């Protein structure tokens, strides 16, 4: 097996009484887009800052590219690119100069740096704004500049900490496409977010966090398989006698059936042809059916089932 890009063993980080990371362990393989999903305050950013050796931790060990990560591990830092949650650029420098400056902290060769900066400008779609100062950019463009500054030196591991916060949908799509492209070009990615749609869209593997702990790790499919609820069927009906509701509840794989407001909501745990089976029953009972919806569970459902609360609570 290849050496993991990031390996975290039993990490504990406390802020006085508050346990921010509680025996946090994680392995991220090369070439992954690894999503850290959790509500605000779940410990995602703390974990990232510990990986980067910015934060001191109480217990545990962190390895990056197979070596222990320390504040002076400059050889490791050279291979890491970070896009922080807060935009960190110089107001006095132009877009081009900002990217050049931060790229220059990693790349000494002037010609190579010039090439990298131009590629980063292109990647972030900032060609028309290279001479602008950051304060003249919109929120979305500023985020894109922040990303360009973090990835210009072509790192092998890119850490993005909620890069789409307060970004318009157009910029968000561009950012997500860009991240996928970076991954295709060979970078391993750690992506933190509390937007499950984003994580579902781009991540190859996901860890769900809450209160400083990892609750579950796996691919989307694996995570969704972990929960009881695997299908939600909603059927519009004029009426449903209680006896019929009980009969539906007795069908195979159905574990919950609620009727209210002319809507029958049926929760199924696994199994195939659940929808057909329910529709057949209603047809036999001569009950008129309106609209019918069948929905697969989301990561929010996974989170809800594991923690008992919504992801965005």
């Amino acid at each position: 097996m290849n050496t993991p890009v990031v390996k975290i063993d039993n990490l504990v980080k406390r802020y006085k009484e508050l346990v921010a990371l509680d025996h946090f362990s994680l392995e991220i393989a090369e070439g992954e887009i690894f999503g850290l999903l959790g509500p605000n305050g779940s410990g995602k950013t703390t974990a990232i800052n510990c990986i980067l050796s910015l934060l001191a931790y109480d217990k545990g060990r962190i390895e990056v590219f197979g070596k222990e990560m320390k504040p002076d591990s400059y050889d490791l830092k050279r291979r890491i690119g970070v896009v922080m949650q807060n935009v960190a650029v110089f107001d006095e420098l132009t877009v081009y100069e900002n990217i050049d400056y931060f790229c220059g902290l990693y790349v000494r060769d002037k010609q190579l740096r010039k090439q990298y900066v131009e590629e980063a400008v292109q990647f972030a779609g900032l060609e028309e704004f290279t001479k602008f100062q950051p304060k003249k950019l919109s929120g979305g463009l500023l985020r894109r500049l922040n990303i360009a500054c973090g990835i210009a030196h072509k790192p092998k591991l890119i850490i993005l900490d909620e890069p789409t916060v307060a970004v318009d949908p157009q910029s968000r799509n561009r950012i997500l496409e860009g991240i996928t492209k970076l991954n295709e070009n060979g970078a391993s990615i750690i992506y933190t977010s509390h937007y499950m749609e984003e994580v579902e869209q781009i991540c190859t593997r996901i860890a769900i966090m809450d209160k400083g702990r990892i609750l579950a790790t796996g691919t989307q499919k694996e995570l969704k398989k972990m929960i009881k609820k695997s299908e939600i069927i909603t059927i519009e009906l004029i009426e449903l006698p209680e006896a019929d509701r009980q009969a539906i509840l007795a069908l195979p794989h159905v574990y919950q059936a609620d009727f209210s407001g002319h809507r029958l909501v049926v929760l199924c745990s696994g199994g195939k042809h659940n929808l057909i089976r329910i529709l057949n029953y209603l047809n036999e009972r001569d009950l008129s059916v309106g609209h019918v919806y069948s929905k697969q569970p989301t990561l929010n459902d996974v989170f809800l089932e594991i923690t008992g609360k919504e992801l965005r609570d």
Partner: protein
Amino acid sequence: MLFNIQYTWRILARNKTNLFWILFFPITLGCLFKVAFSNMSTSERFSPVPVAIVCEEGAPSAEPFCAIAEELGKEGENQMLAITWCDEKEAMRLLKEKSVDGILFVKDRVTLTVSSNMNNVQINQSILQILTERYNAGMALLEDTAALYPDRLAAAAETLQTAISGEFCREISYSRSPQDPYTQYFYNLIAMACLFASMAGLHISLNNQGNLTALGARKNISATGKLTSITSELIATALFEFLLNTLAFLFLVFVLKVDMTARLPLAVFSILISSLTGVSLGFFIGSIGNRGEDFKTGVSTAVSMVCCFLSGLMVGNMRILIEEHAPFLNRINPAALISDSFYCLNVYESLERYAADSLTLILLSAGLCLGGFLMTRRKRYAGLSNVS
């Protein structure tokens, strides 16, 4: 490192706040000082005392006193009296019209008449009174000499005339050039401008600490070492602030014509050291604790202003008072040291005290840089809650 220096210069050159406080504010304040102090200097310049002299023909004092009066009334740099020779009636009229500050009647003795409702010329009246008293005392001495030692009368008369007309005692300056007492405010102004460089120094610290600013966090996780980053920024900032302070200094010297031209190269060297001290001070303050930017900016400004206050920027004789009661403060206060080094350059022939001031400033800068670096050197932070 050169790359970092170039970008630091670019950032500083475009930072309008920095340019204002280091360059334009001292220039503006210098202009205000110049206007205020030039009026005060003019008001303090000595003008000859207007006096009417009424000489009684054949009076014993007429000949010797008139000789002395003519000497004191000679036009030129040392003119003491502006004399109107007239009769008593005319003299009284002039006094009434306030055209003269007093009347000297020359008879057996010289007597002075002044008007009681001329309070604004009390100094001039005092001068005339002293002149009168000294002459009369001298005449009494001559009479005694004539009675007791007649052979020495001529020599005594000559000595007396010399003494009264000012040849005997002459004011001499022990300095390289006579100093306007208000020039010290300009020395303190330069000290203030140099200490304002602490703002730029503060930002070096803030931008290199991962727990204080997002920029600091980004730099901390980069592949450039903290020593390289901080050292290059300290050098670049000190040189840039030196340039601005030198421009402000040259403006004071060549445009406002403030008398600080003595030993210009050494003065410029002083500005270099002082700028470094200012930057180091800010860097040190920024490195202490984990309070945010606003708090540290407040502390840095307060420290600079207190140092300037203690060195006499607001109250002229403050440094002298401190020298009397707590001289140690003047030895460690960077503003007092900067101001004193300029004073030494312009006043003393010897460079001994200037060298001591400069050396102290260099040691102070080195200590502040070292202390700041030890506090910010590579480390993991306990929390990043202040990052903005």
